[in-house]
């Protein structure tokens, strides 16, 4: 039964990784931007929720309702003010800009919040759990995270495939110049894609923060999980990212069942194995 428990926990943990990775996947799929600040943005969202909860006294869950829309707006502005200019200068410039953004965010957080570890207090949600059998119980927070992840990915997929704006995003990703010929302003379209990516990374950052502590320097080590989920699943495919997140989560919890020291190593080894033997990922994209 321990093994079944490990599988269940792995799938639930994978949901969090998928939620965290889908913003990275979206930016890469639509604009070919590799966002090195992705992990730090998640941490920034956590601190923003922490500050909101501390100052106003509302619960951290309610802070989420504020932080996610704020991040969407921030995403649009970051694209129009920063990424858009660097895109014209080529992929290397964009990579450097996101690297710079990562350093700026980390140091701003250090400066304003010090290097102390914090947690987002969500009351009983973090400890309450649902008992399925005598050996298997799942925490409400993990289930909530998984459902959120599934909801966000299905929502994004429906947005891209069923709405006019979503089709325009895919068209712009296919051929930006041809998209201007149907009347799409690529700067605005990319801005919207960035806004969506920022909103999802904020949500993921908050879910991370509710289950474990965070400090200003933890972003890059979180980022690697997102990278691994995206690469395992297949670059530029949202369903692939979902599968990649779950496979990564499973690898970590199953390995932890053997020996807790293997947890992270198993994820990294799986990632390397995918790169070596199936570099296109498990569910490669035809396109977004």
């Amino acid at each position: 039964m321990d093994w079944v428990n490990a599988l269940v926990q792995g799938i639930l943990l994978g949901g969090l990784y998928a939620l965290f990775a889908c913003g990275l996947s979206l930016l890469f799929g639509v604009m070919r931007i590799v966002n090195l600040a992705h992990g730090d943005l998640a941490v920034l969202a956590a601190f923003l929720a922490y500050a909101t909860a501390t100052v106003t006294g509302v619960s951290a869950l309610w802070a989420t309702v504020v932080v996610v829309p704020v991040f969407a707006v921030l995403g649009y502005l970051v694209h129009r003010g920063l990424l858009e200019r660097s895109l014209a200068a080529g992929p290397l410039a964009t990579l450097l800009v996101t690297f710079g953004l990562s350093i700026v965010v980390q140091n701003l957080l250090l400066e304003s919040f010090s290097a102390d570890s914090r947690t987002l207090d969500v009351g009983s949600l973090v400890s309450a759990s649902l008992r399925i059998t005598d050996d298997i119980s799942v925490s409400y927070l993990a289930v909530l995270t998984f459902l959120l992840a599934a909801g966000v990915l299905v929502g994004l997929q429906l947005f891209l495939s069923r709405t006019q704006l979503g089709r325009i995003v895919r068209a712009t990703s296919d051929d930006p110049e041809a998209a201007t010929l149907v009347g799409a302003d690529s700067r605005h379209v990319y801005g919207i894609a960035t806004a969506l990516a920022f909103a999802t990374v904020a949500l993921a950052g908050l879910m991370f923060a509710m289950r474990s502590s965070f400090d200003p320097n933890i972003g890059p080590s979180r980022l690697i999980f997102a990278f691994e989920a995206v690469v395992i699943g297949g670059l530029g495919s949202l369903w692939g990212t979902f599968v990649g997140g779950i496979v990564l989560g499973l690898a970590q919890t199953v390995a932890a069942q053997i020996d807790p020291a293997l947890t992270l190593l198993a994820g990294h080894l799986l990632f390397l194995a995918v790169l070596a033997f199936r570099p296109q990922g498990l569910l490669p994209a035809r396109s977004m």
Partner: protein
Amino acid sequence: MTLLEVSDLEVRHGQLAAVNGLDLSVSDGVTLAVIGANGAGKSTLLRALAGVLRPSRGTIRFDGQDITAMPAHRRVAAGIALVPEGRRLFPSLTVEENLLVGTYRKRPGPWTIARVQELFPWMVERRRQVASQLSGGEQQAVAIGRALVSNPRLLLLDEVSLGLAPVIVRRIYEVLPEILDAGTTVLVVEQDVSQALRVADRVQCLLEGRSVLEGTPAELTPDQIEQAYFGLPPAVAGGTD
């Protein structure tokens, strides 16, 4: 009434002036064919009209309004649609999605997706097929449909015949009268001179970015067109030996 008026237009590709001091005007409801050899500046002209390229000199007036500095994506709503050279469909989108995307900034008018599907009935049953799987002729038809559903006042067709079998080209040009009946003004760029002469009300021949000959297909002689097309002096083209 003059719908499009281009004066003293210069468009540069680096050092090269691909369009060099060009004047051109198109009246409402008229089909103008711009012909010329490879590198005469035809595609560059259309891309400048659609706003993808910025002219370095001159003005473009559309419906009385100076649109020289208007960005490409706003010209669709103003009523200009380009069917670009090489089709440029969105390869990962289906036939239907390519047409739907064409309606993004549509103006009110007679063209709808249903009407395009009447023009090309095969698009109905293959609407879920991805555009990259279509043949060249089918892609060209979808590209024309994608431009039409925005209900342009001026439709720019760039090298529709390029890379297609003659029978396919003829079938695509067969729909042109219906497009004109809907009140659309058409500017076609063609390397295939006989095809251009068949469909056009007026013909303008470009040579090295300049207009060297203009008239109706009826008033121009094959010799005149040949001279203008290849830039030959009259004596040689006249065949004096």
